[in-house]
């Protein structure tokens, strides 16, 4: 099976090359037989990549340590689930995993794209996707082959890095890859639309679907990444503006911008150049992200080892940028806008600013991430920027974005009237103002936090008002009870109300981010039975009593643990324990550096975050205790965003039936002039 897998990799390479060649040739000469052959070859590529992947999994599960990849990332005593996830724990395997997803998406995109509306684009979509797949396969076959063999067979492998032995790490990379890779399909459609010069709305429907899918997985992936960093790395936060984190944020930002600006193109035929550029940029940023993580070009705590694969990616990136730029430049005429911005007080303007801010944030993040390289090129000196840079720039931009999140849904398309503004803005503005004033009255003094919470109140007001008005309208028109009305409201306008759910999650996250401004940390030393008393940011008094240090051996590790008995305002809340672990291989030899398991007492108000720093003697434990306010809401916000994404994506099966229902449009809240009919494009 292993040999079969290795061979399949090469066959897949040939298949992808064939598919790329005949798809483009067939499209150019209008030869249906070649086009069909290309599509079939792409399906076949997927098949062979599956076989290649099964081969690698077989090697992992049969512990074939003669394969370098298997020897490097697993050991005989590694739990089964992590043996499975070891597939993407290292460079070569993660490239294969990436290719597997890409080939799967490509097959799905071709399969779903056969309909009459997208038929014209399909040859070029197939061709572009084949080229990307070909690139990944070639990188593996000639650069980093997961099947590379050692010239000997070790009795056991090195094992997996303990920090990767975490459920979050099992799901986080696949989610991120699913998101990254999904950007290739919109890119392929953009290329197809540009080549065929069919730049009206047809190409946008599949692009929107795939962009949503990508956005959905990136959102989940990024949130899981934050969670993993928080529970596993033990430094107390979840976002450090590390280049690798930034790399995952970049395509998310431009993808989000696109999902908003696409609405303007659908409704008004504006922003055609911009949208094509955003689609391409999103794809290029995800390739850039991979390049950053793989080349070791930027100092990052999580980068993969320096490897020649970086050069492959750099080359691919340059070629892709050049090709896209050429395509756009030669088709500027076809991309002319069909309408003009009519007023600054309109939804278009709000969306334009939203795009501007999102792209501004991505630019600043990109700039900060690449600054060490740029400064070295320009001035010959490497200058790095850290979290202060990203925070100074992005906090104000983020708050502006938050404000726009509240404004966008309230304001009418084309030109908002004064009465529209008054009717829509009164309640949300009041909610925001009351929130801000209340917090100041309660003694909050952090400027950015107050602005953030006031704006969050404003957006919550907006969302609440939208749901309230929509539900009330249904109740009065159809006589449904409120719950049914709400469910139908969301169900029949998934795109609009799903979007609001996403906004709700995002705002919750922003509010949680601001909570970290009030973080408190204490470094304490405790012997068995000794206590320490500390105040949390909410004013509660906590007492931590050491229960002593214990040392024992578990499964594949030696553990030193300390338990703290915690009381809040005199009431016992439980024991929080933190561990130092030394992992060992099947022969009891230590592997890797010791790692820390933090103890977290989760709560809606705050997490109590306990890190064992070290033990002196037998029971003198050095402990860091931190109160991290509102962290739980970050995960909650991410979850809600995911749900919102699902609502938006859910296929609208009874779309036609809904349309026939005459009440569909009329049952919306009293529509201000130009209020959009919720889009029916799935």
């Amino acid at each position: 099976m292993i040999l079969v897998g290795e061979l399949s990799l090469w066959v897949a390479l040939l298949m992808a090359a064939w598919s790329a060649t005949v798809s483009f040739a067939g499209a150019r000469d209008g030869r249906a037989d070649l086009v069909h052959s290309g599509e079939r070859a792409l399906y076949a590529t997927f098949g062979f990549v599956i076989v290649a992947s099964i081969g690698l999994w077989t090697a992992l599960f049969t512990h074939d340590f003669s394969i370098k990849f298997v020897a490097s990332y697993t050991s005989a005593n590694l739990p089964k689930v992590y043996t499975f996830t070891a597939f993407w724990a290292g460079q070569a395997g993660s490239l294969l995993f990436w290719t597997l997803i890409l080939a799967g998406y490509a097959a799905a995109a071709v399969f779903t794209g056969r309909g009459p509306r997208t038929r014209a684009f399909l040859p070029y979509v197939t061709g572009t996707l084949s080229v990307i797949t070909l690139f990944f396969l070639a990188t593996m076959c000639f650069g980093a082959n997961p099947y590379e063999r050692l010239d000997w067979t070790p009795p056991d492998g090195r094992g997996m890095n303990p920090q990767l032995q975490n459920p979050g790490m099992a799901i986080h990379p696949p989610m991120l890859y699913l998101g990254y890779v999904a950007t290739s399909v919109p890119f392929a459609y953009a290329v197809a639309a540009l080549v065929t010069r069919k730049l009206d709305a047809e190409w946008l429907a599949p692009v929107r679907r795939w962009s949503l899918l990508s956005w959905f997985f990136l959102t989940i992936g990024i949130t899981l990444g934050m969670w993993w960093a928080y529970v596993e790395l033990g430094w107390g936060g979840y976002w450090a503006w590390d280049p690798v984190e930034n790399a995952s944020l970049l395509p998310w930002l431009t993808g989000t911008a696109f999902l908003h600006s696409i609405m303007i193109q659908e409704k008004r035929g504006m922003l055609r150049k911009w949208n094509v550029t955003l689609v391409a940029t999103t794809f290029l940023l995800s390739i850039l992200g991979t390049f950053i993580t793989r080349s070791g070009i930027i100092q990052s705590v999580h980068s993969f080892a320096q490897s020649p694969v970086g050069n492959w990616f750099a080359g691919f990136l340059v070629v892709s940028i050049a090709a896209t730029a050429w395509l756009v430049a030669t088709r500027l005429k076809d991309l002319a806008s069909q309408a003009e911005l009519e007023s600054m007080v309109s939804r278009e303007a709000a969306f334009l600013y939203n795009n501007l801010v999102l792209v501004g944030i991505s630019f600043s993040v990109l700039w900060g991430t690449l600054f060490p390289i740029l400064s070295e090129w320009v001035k010959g000196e490497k200058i790095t920027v850290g979290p202060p840079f990203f925070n100074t720039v992005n906090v104000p931009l983020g708050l502006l974005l938050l404000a726009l999140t509240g404004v966008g849904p309230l304001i009418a398309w084309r030109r908002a009237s004064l009465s529209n503004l008054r009717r829509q803005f009164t309640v949300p503005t009041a909610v925001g103002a009351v929130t801000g004033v209340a917090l100041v009255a309660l003694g909050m003094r952090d400027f950015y936090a107050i602005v953030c919470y006031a704006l969050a109140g404003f957006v919550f007001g907006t969302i609440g008002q939208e749901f309230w008005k929509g539900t009330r309208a249904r109740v009065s028109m159809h006589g449904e009870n409120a719950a049914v009305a709400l469910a139908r409201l969301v169900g029949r306008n998934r795109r609009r109300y799903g979007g609001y759910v996403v906004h709700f999650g995002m705002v919750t996250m922003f509010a949680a981010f601001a909570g970290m401004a009030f973080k408190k940390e204490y470094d304490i030393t405790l012997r068995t039975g000794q206590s320490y008393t500390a105040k949390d940011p909410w004013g509660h008094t906590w007492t931590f009593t050491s229960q002593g240090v214990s040392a024992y051996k578990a499964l594949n590790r030696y553990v030193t643990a300390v338990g703290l008995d915690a009381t809040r305002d005199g009431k016992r809340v439980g024991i929080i324990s933190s561990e130092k672990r030394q992992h060992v291989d099947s022969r009891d030899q230590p592997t890797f550096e010791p790692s820390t398991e933090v103890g977290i007492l989760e709560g809606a108000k705050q997490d109590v975050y306990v890190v064992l720093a070290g033990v002196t003697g037998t029971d003198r434990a050095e402990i860091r205790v931190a109160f991290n306010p509102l962290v739980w809401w970050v995960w909650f916000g991410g979850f809600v965003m995911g749900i919102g994404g699902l609502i938006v994506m859910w296929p609208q099966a009874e779309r036609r039936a809904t349309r026939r229902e005459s009440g569909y449009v009329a049952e919306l809240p009293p529509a201000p002039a130009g209020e959009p009919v919720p889009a029916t494009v799935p």
Partner: protein
Amino acid sequence: MKARNKFLIGGALVLGSASYLMASSIQDTGQYFLTPTELQAKVADDPSFVNQGVKIGAKAVPGTIVRDPSGRSLRFVMADMADSTKTYPVYYKGIAPDTFTDGVEVVVEGRLQADGTFHATTLLAKCASRYENAPEQGEGTPGYKEYQQYKGKHPAGVPKTAAPAPASQS
């Protein structure tokens, strides 16, 4: 004025202030990223360079790590990755990351003191084995040493079978 122009003015304002923020915060918080060799050259050029915040990429010299029993501070010597004669003693106050061990690649952030000690406020250990622990031909895998010795004695060829696992060495 046309809405389009108004929008462009607004956009320019937003982007302008963002660029201003970017430029000024790079001014204020940007740090040189140097190797010990480069740091020595800088200090030789301009003695006032001492006590300026910098980031140094170097290697922890094996055997020089002295940890305070409390686990809250430590000292070690860092050496240039390319030229191990260029070294600086480092004093770091804080909890060292799990990955910090002998010979590891480190990035320290802090200030060089007048006495030649580098006072670090952050210490990042970039272990080659953090995410990518691919050793050259399995270096570090169990049995590697035995294999190397075996290989030396049998120049004719190496059987592709596992070296028998020695009894537990713990």
